[in-house]
């Protein structure tokens, strides 16, 4: 046996974040989705956002339902636990996980089928319960994994790959989230990372229910002419109240050079800020009525509104409202939880 020492090319050192981790530390297994699928771009945006925020990977719980989109938590944060639930039921599993441990970050990925149809009830109730979580819907207007049926977010009169017309009205998840009281609501496009990454960072820094509807074309079943969820159609019709979004971490927020009128800055719970570069000067992302009106106007004009529509950084989450004890419930020990035989004797006495 012999061996040759092959001189290795020294790889260029990758940038490290404040934890000393490189972007590779935020990746997962290689994706098995179709090449060009919008979902993969969202995965990359999540990786970047988590890296740049220096999130400790294992302190995130990755939650998902069933669908191509719901597979993606396998492709990011390999050092985080994941729960790939049953179809449409991710919100309830996340509720339980979050009740057990309030100190983790809950990053959930779902699809428009998973959330808009089978899971619509659970989605709405998770908002109502004010879970402290990030809920991303990778919205392609179809059921990708079951091969191209219309989903409930498919627009009226759009066509599928077989040129059949959709006769039903769409459910707008963003409008629903606003109505139900989600405290961070945005829509983005998988093909625009410059907008998407700061929106994810903002969502991860927000306390309360953060909802992101990310348009994410399905290249295999919904990228044709006649679809309103194709790359081309979204690029053509996208309209934003802001032409750019920046995320400013807490330390930098103090030194921020801010131009009132042109910019809107929104303070988040952890001291960071989302900086919005306005195109429409009257837009106010802290006013839910204006957000709903803006969405309706865009829809009437056939435009696809994107951006951060609404933030309420003073929102309270479930545990604050419920008055749960500090720290994770799951860390409580038997001594904290069992009242012991003395109390049991008293209970017995009352039953004698």
């Amino acid at each position, binding site marked *: 046996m012999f061996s040759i020492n092959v001189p290795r090319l020294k790889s260029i050192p990758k940038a490290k974040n404040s934890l000393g981790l490189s972007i590779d530390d935020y990746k997962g297994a290689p994706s098995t989705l179709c090449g060009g699928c919008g979902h993969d771009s969202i995965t990359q945006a999540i990786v970047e956002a988590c890296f740049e925020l220096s999130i400790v990977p*294992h302190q995130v719980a990755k939650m998902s339902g069933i669908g191509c989109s719901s597979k993606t938590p396998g492709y990011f944060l390999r050092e985080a636990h994941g*729960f*790939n639930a049953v179809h449409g039921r991710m919100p*309830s*599993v996340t509720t339980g996980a979050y009740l057990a441990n309030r100190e983790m970050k809950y990053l959930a990925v779902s699809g428009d089928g998973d959330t808009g149809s089978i899971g619509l*009830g659970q989605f709405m109730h998770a908002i109502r319960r004010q879970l402290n979580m990030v809920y991303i819907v990778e919205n392609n207007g179809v059921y990708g994994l079951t091969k191209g049926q219309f989903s409930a977010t498919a627009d009226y009169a759009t066509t599928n790959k077989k040129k059949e017309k959709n006769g039903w009205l769409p459910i707008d998840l963003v409008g629903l989230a606003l109505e139900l009281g989600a405290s961070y609501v945005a829509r983005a496009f998988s093909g625009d990372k410059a907008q998407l990454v700061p929106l994810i960072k903002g969502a991860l820094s927000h306390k309360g229910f953060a909802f992101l509807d990310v348009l994410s074309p399905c290249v295999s079943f919904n990228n044709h002419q006649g679809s309103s969820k194709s790359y081309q159609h979204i690029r053509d019709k996208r309209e934003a109240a802001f032409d750019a979004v920046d995320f400013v971490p807490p330390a930098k927020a103090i030194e921020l050079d801010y131009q009132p009128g042109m910019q809107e800055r929104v303070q988040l719970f952890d001291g960071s800020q989302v900086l919005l570069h306005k195109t429409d000067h009257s837009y106010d992302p802290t006013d839910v009525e204006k957000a709903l009106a803006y969405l309706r106007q865009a829809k009437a004009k056939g435009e696809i509104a994107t951006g951060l529509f609404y933030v309420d950084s003073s929102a309270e989450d479930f545990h604050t409202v419920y008055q749960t004890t500090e720290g994770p419930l*799951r860390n409580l020990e038997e001594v904290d939880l069992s009242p012991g*035989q003395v109390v049991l004797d008293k209970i017995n006495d009352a039953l*004698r």
Partner: protein
Amino acid sequence: MTKPSVNEFVLRIANVNGTGSASANTLVAKTIFRMGVSIGPKNMFPSNIQGLPTWYEIRVSQQGFTGRRGGVDFMVAFNGETLKSDAADVVAGGYILYDSSKFLSDAEKKKDVTYLGVPISDLAVTHFESVPKRIFLQNLIYVGVLARLLHLDQEVLMGLLSDQYAKAKDLLEANRQAIDIGARYCEEHFAYPLSFHVEKRPKPDKILLEGNDALALAALYAGATVCGWYPITPSTSVVEHFTRYCHKYRISAQGKKKFAIVQAEDEIASIGIVLGACWNGARAFTATSGPGISLMSEFFGYAYYAEVPAVIFNIQRCGPSTGMPTRSQQADLLLCAYASHGDTKHILLFPENPTECFELGMQAFDLADQLQTPVFVMSDLELGMNQFLCDPLQLKEGAAINRGKVRRAADLDKSQKPFYRYEDIDGDGIPYRSYPGESGKGAYFTRGSGHDRFGRYTESSELYQENLDRIRAKFEKARSTLPKPRYVEVEEARWLIVAFGSSIEPLREAICGLEEQGILLSLLCLKSFPFHPDCAAILDRYDHIIIVEQNQQGQMRTLMQAEGVLTPTARVHSVLHYSGNPIEAEFLKKHIQHIMGI
């Protein structure tokens, strides 16, 4: 049938629901209990809030039989609507107390019983001003009559009443007055006490407790912190009791909650919450009934396959569908044993009284953690919502909560070997789990889709089968760690009765009664599924086996045959009871004798 005598009779009170009769009736039951005599109270109520018939039956037994006997010795026929059918249940020589404010002709009366007419509503109208009082206090008037006729201890009765109205002095006074009116009417019109009545005895060390209350205490003591649930009779009171106990015993020094109880949007979400919490390292449970179990089924398969612990208290009721929601049955056995699609199987526990609800309820949490799988505690309405005379609750000496195989952060971080979620390191089929949020080294992706022993996605037939076979082996090995059956062996008996849950107490009376006639029967009380290895050996010893269960199709028999502990031959017989009402000793005696050809 046992002849009524001192401390040995059946009293039934027929009421209209929503008229405040419940507290008056429990007052009677509790008085007899406090006088040291064994009682078995049963509440038979409609799925309705106001206006339909409801019955409260108290079995009084010197011998300590607290199940239903069958037949009634003393009927308080306080619901005119059901007077006729109520009278039909009264045995010859018995008594019927009725409201004689309305005329009842002799033609309408049964010949072999004594009618005691008390103008209850007239008395209420004469003595009380307000309409609510005139309605509610009628119940206390018949309590007053009963107190004399049955010789209830005045001091005990009044003591209980004072406790009940400790915070409402004016109501206490009105209640006392009503009891007095009834008692005086009795003194003036009837000879009392009756031949069968209550006599004070030295009080045995027993408590009076509902199964649902006991399950709530089990969850409290087992350290459950998360509960997801959706209201459904007869399970609702489990969570109500748990909530009450948590507010009393689980508030931190800072006034914060050491628990989280969420009323979910439906049962699918309830079990989703339980799985999420258990996956994340908490102990969690849900309480439900048949329709809820049906909705939860997809998640049960997930939990079986992904090996997530969960505790489900199934308080069974009459099906199919909504069936008779306020009546009892043991008809979810097949549903729960194999709930969900695919090759699943689940652990079921069968408590027979509230003390066992507490013990098996606590054990359910340990088993779920140790075996990393859902565990069902199979109670029913009869056991859950009625008070049972049972042994005081006792924690097992020195037993601590057992969380099963968990690799915590310290262990993972210093370990040289990588962590694999579904690896069978110890050869018992049980892998190690890790809690999210503790260490990157313990991270894995929990999924219901095909996975190998490393926890990786797979569609390889071999790896898929390997994992599935390990899970089966885990169940097989676990059988001997599940609660053992209770075996009451009678020497020379050639017949064995097999039963479980709420059938046992009336069965005890039936077996004793038959023994007095020289009919010898052994008894096997099942406590768990999959069946404990002891079961098959015991069954083999008998010429004949009678399985008693409260469903139409013989579901336990099917399970025993399917699991190979019993071969379907002519030696196997069934007694099936599915009327929805609690099973009676007389019914059991009759059917057992019939099968035995006696």
